[in-house]
């Protein structure tokens, strides 16, 4: 926690400096190719406070942040925070689905591979995991589109739901909203849009979780207390379920927590490929449209989310492993 506050200030500093480091002056950049008159330029400089000393600018930036003002998008003229909030659920839905796939396949695969070390199953899982880990996911996404959308025609190519359906967002999660709307076929449409991007985004976390689970299990399986438990005559199910799993979960949870940053990075690519209207695509679009206030705000908010999740993971640790709770 003590580390979090200075880090967050560092993050605000990066976000603040970002706009000022862009080549050229920020107002001209915002004006884009249209250009502007001298007076209008000076007026805008004053309006955004660029004419004041740099430390004053930083303090007023922090002041605005505290009030939840992250600036206004140049393109849509909407507050950046509002834009972020409308798009954020899409990314969360995608990431959650991805991490669920990753955990539900990666965890059992890693466990079974560890208990059957050296078997052909173990080799297959490890080879698959290393391939997944080495995967350029933007290409993987294109391949899946070729196969499932192009050749088989099973899934749509882009978006979150078919244009046939329209309803007001309630939770922002398309799968839940489509159920709430009660429209026939809406849910399956939302699901079929979600599945491919989730697989793509979940690939690297899946590989990492499988590898980590396997090595954590192997380490714990070699410990004395596991041998004792076996010597006492406990069945393999009980040894693995009760004695091993809990202790092997600690490094695995760290890894799952670390995947949040990976998920965001992956979301940038996945959302771009599948035209998924989430934060990742929004950031890329904002960079290309030179919508710098949005980039600045997004940068800050994403870092804040990543830090928050890491904090939660740290706290979860304490719950699982009392040792850490006491030494901390």
């Amino acid at each position, binding site marked *: 926690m003590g580390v979090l506050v200075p880090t967050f200030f*560092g993050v605000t500093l990066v976000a603040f400096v*970002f706009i000022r480091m862009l080549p050229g002056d920020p107002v001209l950049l915002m004006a884009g190719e249209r250009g502007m008159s001298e007076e209008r330029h000076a007026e805008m400089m004053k309006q955004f406070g660029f004419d004041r000393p740099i430390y004053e600018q930083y303090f007023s930036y922090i002041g605005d942040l505290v009030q939840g003002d992250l600036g206004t998008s140049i393109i849509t003229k909407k507050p950046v925070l509002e834009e972020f909030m409308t798009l954020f659920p899409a990314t969360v839905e995608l990431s959650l689905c991805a991490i669920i796939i990753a955990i539900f396949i990666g965890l059992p695969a890693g466990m079974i591979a560890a208990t059957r070390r050296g078997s052909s199953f173990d080799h297959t899982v490890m080879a698959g995991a*290393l391939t997944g880990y080495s995967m350029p996911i933007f*290409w993987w996404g294109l391949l899946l*589109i070729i196969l499932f959308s192009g050749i088989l025609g099973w899934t749509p190519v882009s978006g979150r739901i078919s244009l046939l359906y329209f309803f007001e967002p309630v939770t922002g999660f398309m799968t839940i909203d489509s159920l709430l709307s009660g429209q026939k076929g809406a849910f399956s449409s939302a699901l079929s849009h979600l599945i491919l991007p989730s697989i793509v985004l979940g690939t690297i976390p899946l590989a990492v979780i499988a590898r980590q689970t396997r090595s954590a299990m192997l380490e714990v399986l070699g410990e004395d207390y596991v041998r004792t438990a076996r010597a006492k005559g406990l069945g393999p199910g009980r040894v693995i379920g009760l004695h091993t799993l809990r202790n092997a979960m600690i490094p695995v949870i760290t890894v799952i927590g670390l995947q949040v940053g990976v998920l965001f990075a992956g979301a*940038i690519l996945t959302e771009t490929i599948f035209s998924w209207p989430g934060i990742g695509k929004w950031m*890329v679009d904002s*960079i290309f449209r030179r919508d710098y206030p949005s980039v600045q705000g997004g940068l800050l908010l994403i870092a804040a989310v990543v830090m928050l999740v890491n904090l939660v993971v740290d706290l979860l640790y304490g719950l699982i492993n009392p040792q850490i709770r006491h030494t901390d």
Partner: protein
Amino acid sequence: MTEATVYEENSDSRQGGRLALLSEFWAYFSENRGAVIGLIFFVCIVIVAIFAGYLAPHNPNEQFREAFLQPPFWQDGGEIRFPLGTDAVGRDVLSRLIHGSRYSLFIGCIVVSVSLVVGVMLGLCAGFFRGKVESVIMRVMDVVLAFPSLLLALVLVAILGPSLINAMIAIAIVQQPHYVRLTRAAVIGETARDYVTAAKVIGVRRLRLMFVTILPNCMAPLIVQAALSFSSAILDAAALGFLGMGAQPPTPEWGTMLAEAREFILRAWWVVTLPGVAILTTVLAINLMGDGLRDALDPKLKRS
């Protein structure tokens, strides 16, 4: 024992020790079949990259106006002149892939050397001096780590302007913290050891202590990290290229090739599939090697 004899003996045992270490390392490394396969494949890629000019059948940027989107030779309409087909403007895909290996290896080398050198310096300072120096360095690294790597790289490239060089700078900055953290942890661990105290007692000077006494003993985790970050540098650079923020067309960089091929994804599978296969196999080979290196260098996992 005087200082001189200590050093003499040291250098004596070092000579023999190094060879023994190397053969021990190879014994562990070659035990891992995947690692050896990875190594062989990697050497092949290096050879292809070095002799790209001789191996490629055509100039990677030459456009054959009579052959747009021609399929590979085994398919209908393909010809042996373009073994892996041509792209949308009639360039030979195989030649572009061969030349692309140069860019990927170049990116990996530069990114790893820059982030390794700078990261080791910072980590060494943090671990050796502790106190304020350490907190400042580590806090800055925490800030860098708070951002998802690809996002930070993207934003850095937006500041610097999209190009291959700037993409490499951005990726090197993003990878920095891992080296700093590893070096710092290793240095702190080593500084507490007796041989360092002994060296201090004999009066070894600070710089020598840092670079000659301590650093070589911290290399194992750094070598493994270097292998891993070599592959992730290639992946990140390809991702940036794919997003249009890395190498710019018509550079035959694999990620950039994929970006150019995107619109033909349902019409011409070869322009989309092949650059990806090139990225995947290269990264996979390096990761296989990295795993082998880790097993061979990590004393915890050594089962002697």
